C-alpha cells in the first residue's frame, strides 16, 4: 500500500483537460480525487468536505484561475483556519508569484509541463513528508508524555519524602520544644523566654529542684539544625542525671565536656552556665563555660553584679578546666541568664550605616528599667523590647531565663 492510497486530493484548475488527466493519474494510484474548476469553487468544496468529515489531505492547485487565483485561495483557506498541505502547479511567468508563495511558507511546486510519473513522484514526496512530520510529532508527543509521567512520579516520590521529613521535623520540633521549659512547681520562681532562629534550636535551659535548693543550666550549642538539637538532648540528659548525683558544677562540666568530645565528630562548640542555689546557706555557685555571665539583681537595689566569666567552652578541648564562683543571695533576689543571641540582637542604623548591637549593656539596661515589675511582667517587657530592637529578626537562637528567690 502506497502513501497515496485513500488520500483525498482536490484538484483546482480551470483547464478541463489537465484536470481530467490529473484525476486519472491520481485515481490510478488509489487516491480519492475531487475537482474544482476555479478558486472559489475549490474553497467551497474544501470547506464542505471539512464539514462533512471527509477532509482534503492535499490541494493541488493552479495559479492562474478565474474567481480566486491560487494565491488568494491559499490566503482564504488560511483565514478560515484550514491551512491544508498544498502542491502548486506553476508555469512560465509565475516567478513573482512563486516568491510570494515561498514567503507564505508554501514550498511545494511542480512546473508545467510535467509527465504522469513526475506528478506521482511529487505528490508522493509531499505526502510522505507530511506523514513523517506527523509521525515525528506523535513520537515527540509520546516522548513528552513519557517524560511527563516520569517527572510526575519523581515529584510524587519527593513529595512523599518531604512529607516524611516534615513529620520527623515536626516530631523533632515538638521534642525540642518540650526540652525547654521549666517545671511549674519549682522552689525558685522561673520565667523562660526563647525563640529558635529556625524551627530547631541549639539553646537549652533547665531548672531542677534539689533538697537544699535548685540547679539551673543554660547552654548554647553551635548551630540551628537537628544536630544541634541532638546535642541539646544530650545536655539535658546529663543535666538531669547531675540533679540526681549532685556533682559540683566544675565536675559536671568536666563530665559533659568529655562526653561532648567523644560524640562531637563535627567539633560543635557548646557554651554553658551552671548555677547551683542553696536555700539552706543562702549561697550560690556559678560555673561558666565560655558563656555570657548571669546578672544578679539584689532585691534591696544597689548595683547588679555579673557572675561567671571564667572558663573555656565545652566540646573543644580535652583538658578543659572549670572553676566555680560562690556568692551570697537573699530572698527576692533575681537572676537573669541568657544566650548570646539576645545580646547579638541588632539592627542596621540607616543614617550611619553601622550595625547596632543590643550588647550586654543594652540588656542590663532593660533588666534595670523594668526591675520594679513582678518577675513575669519584667521578663515579658524585656523580651518584647529585645524583639523590637531587632525588628523581630534574631541573628541567632535567643533565650532568656529569669529567676527569683522566693520569700520564706
Amino acid at each position, binding site marked *: 500500500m502506497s502513501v497515496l492510497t485513500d488520500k483525498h486530493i482536490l484538484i483546482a484548475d480551470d483547464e478541463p483537460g489537465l484536470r481530467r488527466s490529473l484525476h486519472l493519474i491520481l485515481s490510478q494510484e488509489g487516491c480519492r480525487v475531487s475537482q474544482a474548476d476555479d478558486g472559489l469553487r475549490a474553497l467551497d468544496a474544501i470547506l464542505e468536505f471539512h464539514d462533512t468529515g471527509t477532509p482534503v489531505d492535499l490541494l493541488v492547485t493552479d495559479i492562474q484561475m478565474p474567481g480566486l487565483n491560487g494565491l488568494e485561495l491559499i490566503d482564504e483557506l488560511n483565514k478560515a483556519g484550514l491551512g491544508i498541505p498544498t502542491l502548486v502547479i506553476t508555469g512560465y511567468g509565475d516567478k513573482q508569484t512563486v516568491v510570494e508563495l515561498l514567503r507564505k511558507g508554501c514550498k511545494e511546486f511542480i512546473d508545467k509541463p510535467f509527465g504522469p510519473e513526475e506528478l506521482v513522484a511529487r505528490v508522493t514526496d509531499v505526502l510522505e513528508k507530511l506523514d513523517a512530520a506527523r509521525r515525528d510529532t506523535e513520537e515527540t508527543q509520546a516522548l513528552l508524555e513519557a517524560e511527563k509521567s516520569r517527572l510526575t512520579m519523581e515529584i510524587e516520590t519527593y513529595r512523599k519524602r518531604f512529607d516524611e521529613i516534615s513529620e520527623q521535623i515536626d516530631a523533632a520540633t515538638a521534642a525540642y520544644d518540650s526540652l525547654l521549659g521549666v517545671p511549674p512547681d519549682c522552689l525558685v520562681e522561673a520565667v523562660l523566654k526563647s525563640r529558635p532562629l529556625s524551627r530547631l534550636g541549639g539553646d537549652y535551659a533547665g531548672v531542677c529542684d534539689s533538697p537544699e535548693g535548685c540547679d539551673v543550666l543554660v547552654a548554647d550549642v553551635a*548551630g*540551628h539544625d537537628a544536630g544541634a538539637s541532638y546535642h541539646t538532648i544530650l545536655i539535658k540528659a546529663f543535666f538531669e542525671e547531675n540533679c540526681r548525683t549532685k556533682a559540683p558544677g566544675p565536675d559536671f562540666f568536666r563530665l559533659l565536656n568529655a562526653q561532648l568530645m567523644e560524640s562531637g565528630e563535627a*567539633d560543635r562548640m557548646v557554651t554553658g552556665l551552671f548555677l547551683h542555689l542553696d536555700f539552706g546557706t543562702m549561697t550560690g555557685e556559678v560555673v561558666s563555660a565560655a558563656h555570657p555571665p548571669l546578672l544578679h539583681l539584689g532585691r534591696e537595689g544597689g548595683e547588679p553584679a555579673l557572675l561567671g566569666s571564667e572558663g573555656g567552652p565545652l566540646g573543644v578541648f580535652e583538658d578543659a578546666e572549670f572553676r566555680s564562683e560562690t556568692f551570697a543571695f537573699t530572698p527576692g533576689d533575681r537572676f537573669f541568664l541568657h544566650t548570646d543571641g539576645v545580646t547579638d540582637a541588632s*539592627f*542596621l542604623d540607616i543614617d550611619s550605616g553601622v550595625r547596632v548591637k543590643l550588647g550586654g549593656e543594652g540588656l542590663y539596661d532593660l533588666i534595670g528599667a523594668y526591675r520594679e515589675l513582678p518577675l513575669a511582667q519584667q521578663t515579658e517587657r524585656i523580651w518584647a523590647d529585645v524583639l523590637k530592637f531587632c525588628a523581630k*529578626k534574631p541573628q541567632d537562637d535567643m533565650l532568656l531565663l529569669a529567676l527569683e528567690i522566693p520569700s520564706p
Partner: protein
Amino acid sequence: MYTIHEDTDRIAFEFSSEPGHIDRVILRAESFLDRFEAAGSRDFALVLRELLNNALEHGNRGRRDKSIFAAIRRMRGTLFMIRVHDQGDGFDHQAMDLAIPDDPFQTRSRGLPLVNAYAEKLEFNEAGNEVTAYMDLRGETAFRVSPGDEGCTITPSGSLSASNAETFRKTLSGLLASENAAFTFDFSLVPDIDSVSLSVMIGFAKSLARSRPDVVPSIVNASRDIVDLLHMTAMDRIFTVRPREAA
C-alpha cells in the same frame, strides 16, 4: 500611565494600577541596580514585587484610575532604599505583626513579614499608604584564599555565620592537604562571627594540629569584639590572635 524619572543614584516610577506594569518596573529597577556593585538582586526583586503587589491589591484595590509611586535610591555602598506609595486609604501598620508566621502553610499575611525578613529596616508613613524598605545588597560572604611566601591568607569578605559555615568548612578542608608554611585568617572585613563558624575554625585548627603540629594558625586584623570573643571561648589557645590596628 507609566512614567520613569532617573538620575545617578535614584530611579522613580509612577504608573496606573495595572499588573503588567509591575513586571516592567521590576525589570527596569533591576537594570538600574546593575550599575552598582550590588549582589542579592533576587531578594531585591522579591521585596520590590511584594511591595508593589501590596500597593496594587490592598492599597489601590486594583483600581486603574489610581496610581502607584515607587522610588529606588542608593543610600551608600550596597545600601538601597525602596519606597512605594499608593493612593489607597492605608492600613493599621502598628497592629501588624512583622514576625514570620510559625505555620509554614499559612500564606495569608506573609507578604510584609517576608519583606521585613529581607529588609534591614521597614518604615511606614502615618497614613499607612507608604512603605519604605532599606536593603543591604552586599551578598554572600566570599572566601578569598591567597597564597604567599609566608603561607596562605584566608580573607572572608563579610560576616561569618551559620549560613556560610558550610562553604567556610569546605574552603578550609581543601587547604588542609596543602603544603602551606602558615595559615593566616585576615578578619579585616569580618564584623561578626557566630559560634557555628567558630566551631569550623576549631575543627580546622585541631585537624592541623594532628597533621602538622609545628604550624599554629593565626588570626589578624580582628575587631575588638572578636578578640574578646576569641578570648572568652579560649580560642586564643589554638590561634595566634592579632587585633586590628586602631584607626
